[in-house]
Each structure stands twice: as C-alpha cells, then as structure tokens.
C-alpha cells in the first residue's frame, strides 16, 4: 500500500563522533554498509516499505555524499509528484541544527505544510528492517499520543544518552531514565518514534519558547507524565553503530543466515542507488568461504569471513580474512589482510601484510595507497 497518512523524518547527520574515521569524508547516513548499502538506505527503505511516500532527510553539513547517493530518490520510489524525497539542509546559517528540537524547529514550515496526520522520526545509525505500519497499528490500538520503538537487550556500551524505558502492564511508559548505567537487559529507546504531526509541532514550539532544548530530557522525560506514551518492542535483528567495533560486528553479523533473512526480507527489501556493475567474477583458483560479496568484484585470491563491496579486486595469491573492504578498492597479488576495515578506492599493493584484531580492526581511509 502506498500513500498512507504518515510522513517520515530522518536525522541523517548525527553521532558522527562515535565513528569519526568513517565519517571524516561523509555524514552518518552515507556510511557504507553491508556490501552495497549506505546506512540511510535502512530507515529510508523501511519507511517506503511501510507505505510512507513523503520523507524529509535532515542534514546539517558535509552533505555532498548523501546528496549524491539519494539523487532524486528514484531508487526508493521517492521521486514523486505527490510527496517524495526532501533533503533539508539548514536554510541559512542562523538555523540551528545543533540539537533535535532546534533542528525540528528549523523545518517547522515543512512540517506545517505537510498534510499527513502522523510522523515517523528515525535516526540513521541503527541497521534493522522494521515495519512502521505495525508500529502505527499498535499506536492506534493503544490510542497513544507518542509510541517509542524500543529494543530489549543489554545496553550497547557507547550508546549516546540512552533512554531506558519502564512500562506498566499495558505497555504504557511509566518511567524514562537517561543513563548508561544499567546492569543486564533493559528496554532502550531505538531513536524511532511515532507521533501525530500536530502534536510534534506543538511540543517543538513549547520547548523552543521555554528554551528547554533536550529532546529526551525535555520531551520524553516530561511528557510521559502528561501524555499517553507507549512502547513498541522491535524483536528483529538490529545493530546500532556506536563504535568501529559495532560497525565491524554489524557487517560480520550478515554472515548469519537468520540475520540476512530478517534484514534483507524480500517482502520488505532494502533499496539503494544502482550502479550497473557486472556480476562478480570468480577467477580460476579463487577460494571464497563464508563471505558477502557485491556485484562488480573480481576475485582471484582467497576470501573468507569478509564483506566485499561493489567493484573490489582481490589479486592472485592474496588472502583476505575477517575484513570489510569498501567499493572499488584494489588489492594486489600475494598480500595478506585480516581484521581490517578498508574504505573506498584504496589501493593495496603486492605482498603487503595488514593485520588487526577483532577488538581493534585498523581502518584505512578513502583513497589511500598502501
């Protein structure tokens, strides 16, 4: 179904400091992931697959790579006359994109001019495949004002200002703690919420007028007492990227068939920009095991437990194990790579040995030559 009564807002430009090397040349939403995707493909595809056909992408700076990736939105079916994709950089220097509330305040005209009744707001640094229709259904069932998507798990170590939720027996939020200090499993907010558009505008206006500008502290922690705020537990695969280790592990999780089946559910596919690569060529004598490989690669050596993005070349006699190698990187002959993250367009010569460890996978920056 398309053209429902929901619009989407994606924060594409946040938490960059947690993976500062990956975001040196791009914003969070443009971070490559999983062989052919960028992180923003996940929230964007989730919204489109949920029937949302108007999405605003908020970005504060360095948005060249995300603009290049999103283009007109065609790949997500968001190049439309009704609705479609809206990239929303600051209008002037005076627009304040430094926190969620002032950012939303800067796009108030966009929110006010929209006709959809509801808004889904999502960050872009969680990889998951979620059906917002189902969130909407629960929201209406509960007659809620706000529905917060949460996950029940051990708190990711470096998660920025986590909101830990408690519920009554009906799933209504009865407490919101902002803390990193929780033992064992808890219900933490995944930075995705469902709200009436008019209510969102009202809350933003209220916060701005009172100069209380922390979304979690001044909206979530305050309003659960006044409004009917419910939780929606997301039970599928998800991984939030809060460190290079998370990033590495999220890529490696794709080797598990259950994770692939959940994340790349063919009924809710993840869309991305098309590049017209030819299929991948496996050379004579190539050995590939337990790896996720995108089109356009040429593999003449050995690859195991690795993710290869589009257009990667692995030369003869080269061994690659437990690596994430981004698009168009060329590795020469007789080299040995293990536990490393290699960005786009890197050239690694012949007979090089590059080693890292699971706890500290070294990173090679975009365009570098080794």
């Amino acid at each position: 179904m398309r053209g429902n009564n929901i619009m989407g807002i994606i924060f594409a430009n946040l938490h960059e400091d947690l993976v500062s090397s990956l975001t040196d040349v791009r914003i969070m939403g443009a971070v490559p992931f999983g062989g052919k995707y960028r992180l923003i493909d996940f929230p964007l595809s989730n919204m489109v697959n949920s029937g949302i056909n108007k999405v605003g992408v908020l970005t504060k700076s360095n948005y060249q790579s995300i603009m290049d990736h999103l283009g007109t939105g065609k790949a997500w079916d968001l190049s439309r006359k009704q609705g479609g994709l809206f990239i929303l950089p600051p209008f002037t220097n005076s627009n304040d994109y430094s926190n969620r509330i002032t950012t939303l305040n800067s796009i108030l005209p966009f929110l006010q001019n929209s006709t959809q009744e509801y808004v889904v707001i999502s960050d872009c640094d969680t990889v998951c495949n979620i059906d917002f229709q189902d969130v909407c259904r629960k929201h209406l069932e509960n007659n809620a004002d706000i529905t917060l998507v949460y996950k029940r798990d051990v708190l990711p170590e470096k998660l920025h200002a986590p909101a830990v939720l408690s519920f009554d027996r009906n799933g209504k939020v009865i407490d919101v703690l902002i803390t990193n200090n929780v033992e064992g499993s808890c219900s933490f907010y995944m930075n995705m919420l469902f709200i009436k558009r008019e209510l969102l505008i009202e809350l933003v206006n209220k916060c701005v007028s009172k100069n209380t500008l922390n979304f979690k502290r001044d909206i979530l922690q305050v309003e659960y007492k006044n409004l009917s705020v419910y939780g929606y537990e997301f039970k599928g695969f998800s991984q939030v990227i809060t460190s290079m280790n998370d990033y590495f592990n999220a890529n490696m999780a794709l080797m598990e068939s259950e994770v692939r089946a959940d994340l790349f559910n063919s009924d809710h596919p993840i869309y991305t920009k098309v590049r017209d690569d030819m299929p991948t060529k496996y050379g004579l004598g190539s050995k590939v095991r337990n790896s996720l490989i995108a089109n356009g690669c040429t593999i003449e050596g050995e690859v195991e437990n690795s993710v290869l993005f589009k257009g990667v070349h692995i030369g003869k006699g080269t061994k690659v194990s437990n690596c994430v190698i981004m698009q168009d990187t060329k590795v020469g002959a007789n080299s040995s790579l293990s536990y490393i993250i290699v960005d786009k367009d890197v050239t690694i010569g012949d007979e090089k040995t590059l080693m890292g460890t699971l706890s500290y996978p070294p990173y090679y920056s975009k365009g570098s030559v080794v």
Partner: protein
Amino acid sequence: MYPKQEVVAMLLAGGQGSRLGVLTQKLAKPAVPFGGKYRIIDFPLSNCVNSGIDAVGVLTQYQPLVLNEYIGNGQPWDLDSNNSGVSVLSPYQQVKGADWYSGTANAIYQNINYIDRYNPDYVVILSGDHIYKMDYSKMIAAHKENNADCTIAVIDVPLAEASRFGIMNTNPDGSIYEFEEKPAKPKSTNASMGIYVFSYDKLRKYLIEDEEDQNSTHDFGKDVLPKMLNDGLRMFAYQFQGYWKDVGTIDSLWESNMDLLDPNVPLDLTDESWKIYSRNPVVPPQYISDSATVQNSLIADGCSISGSVDFSVLFSNVVVKKGAVVQDSIIMPGSVIEEGAVVQYAIVSENTVIGKNAVIGARPETIEDKDKWGIAVIGDNLKIGDGAKIAPKTMVSENVEGVDE
C-alpha cells in the same frame, strides 16, 4: 513538433527465436537473460545510448509482455528524455485495416510516422539477437564520409563459416558491388551483421516502393537492399572489429555466456567507458557459504551458494544448496539447485527447482555417442523431481516426476 534528432535507431525485437525452444516460449528472443544479469536487448540499447543516439524505437510482435515490462520507460538506459528516449512500437490497427509486421522492412514501413516526428537525417536498423559492443557513431561518421545512401556493418568470419552468412563483396574503396545470401562458394569473408545505416530520405522512398511491390517479401536482406544495389545507390561496407556473436541457438547462447569467463575473449563488461546497462533487481549482495567452492564463474547479487560452482554463470537469486554441483552451466534468475543435484552442461531457465540428487546433462567426455551429447535445457517455473535424470541435449518444458531411490 519534436526537436530534430540527427539519428533515430530502430531495433527489430519481434523475432520469436524459435531455435531457442523453451527459452523463448514465453518471451521474445531479445528478452532472453544473458551474462548473469542482462537481457540480450541491453547490448543494442546500451550501444545506442553510449553512441549518443537518444531516440530508439523498439519493434515488438512475438510475446511482448516481458520485453515491454523490461524496457518500461527506458530509465535504466537513460532513454527517458523529455522529447526522445525509447518507444515500444507494436503492430497496430489502422483505418485501412490491421496488419502484423510481415517482414523487417514492413515493420519499419508501418512506423514511418514514428521516424518522421524526429525528422532525422539517418536511421540505424538494429536487431535484438547479438551480443557485442559497438560505437554506432563511428559507423555513421563513415557513412557520412562516404556520402553513402546505405552502410552495412560487416565482420570478418572464417572462410569455412562464411557460407552461413550474408556475404558483402566490396571494391577496394569499401563500396559494395554484390550481395550473396549464404553462398556455397563465398568470394569474401565480409559477413553482414544485420546492422544498417540509411540516409532517411532514401530509406523512406524505398520502404514506400517496397510496400507497393506485390512480389516483395518486405525483407531488408531479400528485397530492399538488393533493389537499392540494382538502382546504383551508394552502398558501403563498414568493417567492425571486436566481439560479435549471434545468440540465436542454444549452443551459441551457451558459448557466448561461457565467453564471459574467458579472459582472452575481447568482451569486457567492466569497461567504465562503455557500460552495459540493465534493469537491476533489488537484492542483497551474494553470499558464499562455508561449504561452497566457487571457481571461474560469474555470480550475480542475491545468490546464495553452499555447493560447488565451476565454469558457470549464475543470475540473481539463484540458490545452490550444500553438496550440489553446477558445472559449465547457466542458471537463470531465482532457480534453486537442491542438495546433491548435479547440473552439467545445462541451461536452467528462471524460477525452476532442480530436486535433490537430480542429474541434469552430462560432460561430453562421459558420453560415447557424441551425436547424443549437447546442452540440456530446462524451461522456466518447473520442478524437476528428486533423483530425476535429464539426458544431455534434452529440452524440458514440463515438470518431471521424482524417482524413488
């Protein structure tokens, strides 16, 4: 009124391709999958775009659904411009009656209105059954330089094979003085590639005359070109060098796919300057599991491989399960090779399931009577039962029951 286009291309895509048997039962030959992610028509369409031709008419007739849907608005090839792009031209009903396309020349004749809109100087006639990369703009430049009325692309073929082709005999300046259709004793080895450039004023005149000729079969090769030559028009051969293959038979389709695996074959699909575009399915990257061995093969996104794949071309979303063997074969999108199945020297069409321990085709060295050996072909959306055996050179168009073991 449309802005003038110097060149309009007309792509003849109505052929049935009956020699491809089950592969063209439900779709026209140009829509047959090729090379792990393409369809044959991607090659002429991409050649057009890369040659700077923005107006392309695709003439369809036989089983057009898949082809129409595939071409769509032409966006994957950048053929969705405001005033030009790709147009699918099917036979239609006119005031004086309705007619199928009765020959290649008649098909173009019936679409003179389409060509007229662009007021072109030149028209390129192409067919949708060859795999090649060619810069038509160079051929058009040669056409202009020769001040020609018609230019025919030719390729040098081995003398022994020349009698299978239409042969163009030329003067030293490249002008054609004689056509020989499949000559028993060829005088030269310049085989026509079925690619023609015409000056449109001449083409238009001859198409109208040909249509009025009761004795004509309305075919370019048999009627229009010989008449032009007879009338003394300036006709030139344009020598093409590079990879060119007719994929009109099972054997040639199989060979041409296998050519992509041969580093010595000059058909580079990785060349950034001459990309072959196609409609891309929305699928995740391919996954090669712990138990897989993959060598010398071409594998597309969306595949999941746990068995052994050797010298093969696998299209998107193919699943090769543990213990299955795929050798020297082509597996089209969405097909599943179950555990223990062995597929050798075969073409498996789309969305077919090859059951557990089934045996499809065989290696030539295992067959004593070489006449009985050939590529086995399995049609689309079929189920080949567990343990079933499909002999080489067979063509399967219906489900096959399993065999109790």
